[in-house]
């Protein structure tokens, strides 16, 4: 029986830049940052209130995982904002929105009252989008 989700991957264009965005801008915590040989790095972060969910910031680079052509296609799709990887919850969406905006985060949609709560959409530094929500 499956118990819970422990790791989830987000594909990013540049791990240094993603580190800065997820840690310094969003306020996530670094869980594991391991150098894995030349040009390779295993980098996971956790949402501040969810220390047991590791988000792997996975570099899209040519290697065993992606062949050259696939890496190029994937990078292009991520840049275009094709992928939405999840929903982050917050206690106070207006305060979170104002803070992230002040830090230069791009919002596709400002907070809007919906029947299920309040929702906004923002992009990470690579182009992946996320929903930001406050439940009713």
């Amino acid at each position: 029986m499956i118990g819970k989700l422990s790791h989830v991957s987000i594909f990013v264009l540049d791990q240094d830049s993603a580190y800065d965005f997820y840690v310094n801008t969003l306020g996530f915590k670094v869980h594991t940052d391991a150098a894995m040989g030349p040009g390779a790095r295993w980098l996971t972060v956790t949402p501040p209130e969810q220390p047991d969910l590791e988000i792997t910031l996975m570099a899209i680079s040519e290697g065993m995982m992606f062949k050259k052509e696939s890496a190029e296609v994937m990078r292009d799709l991520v840049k275009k904002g094709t992928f939405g990887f999840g929903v982050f919850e917050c206690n106070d969406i207006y305060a979170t929105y104002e803070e992230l905006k002040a830090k230069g985060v791009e919002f596709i949609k400002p907070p809007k009252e919906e029947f299920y709560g309040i929702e906004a959409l923002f992009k990470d530094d690579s182009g992946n989008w996320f929903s930001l929500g406050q439940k009713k």
Partner: protein
Amino acid sequence: MEQEPYPKVYLYRRIVQAKLFIDQHYAKNIDLDNIADEAYFSKFHFIRLFKKAYGKTPHQYLTYVRIEQAKILLKRPIQVSEVCFAVGFSSISSFTGLFKKVTGITPSAYMIQQEKIRLEIKKAPLTYIPGCFAEMKGWTPLYNKTGPEEKSNFQEVE
């Protein structure tokens, strides 16, 4: 006049500015009364709104930021006293006491624990990486003590 995107937007902006001020200046001797003044609030009103947004009073939040920053500094070998002053505490005993209250261990014990984890990651990183990803990335043969493994099944199909 610009229409407000949501009610009381000006209140939110002031509260967020106060929070960002703490984020940036936690290492200094911050006077929280000054922050309330700068945000044009009465102290009581300011604390109430801040707590509503962040679940902590400004003072609790300042302490939280300082302890979190201390945890980051303690990931590398460093003098505890140096960390204490670097994150804005003026007394080592109050820093140590608060740190233990929040994390359950003293700053020096935390530093030893983190150094152990750091060395473990360096020595055997695959302990911290789900095997499927390590294999997909081609790291398994490089780091396994037992030598090269069979060819990965995760390579892209030709």
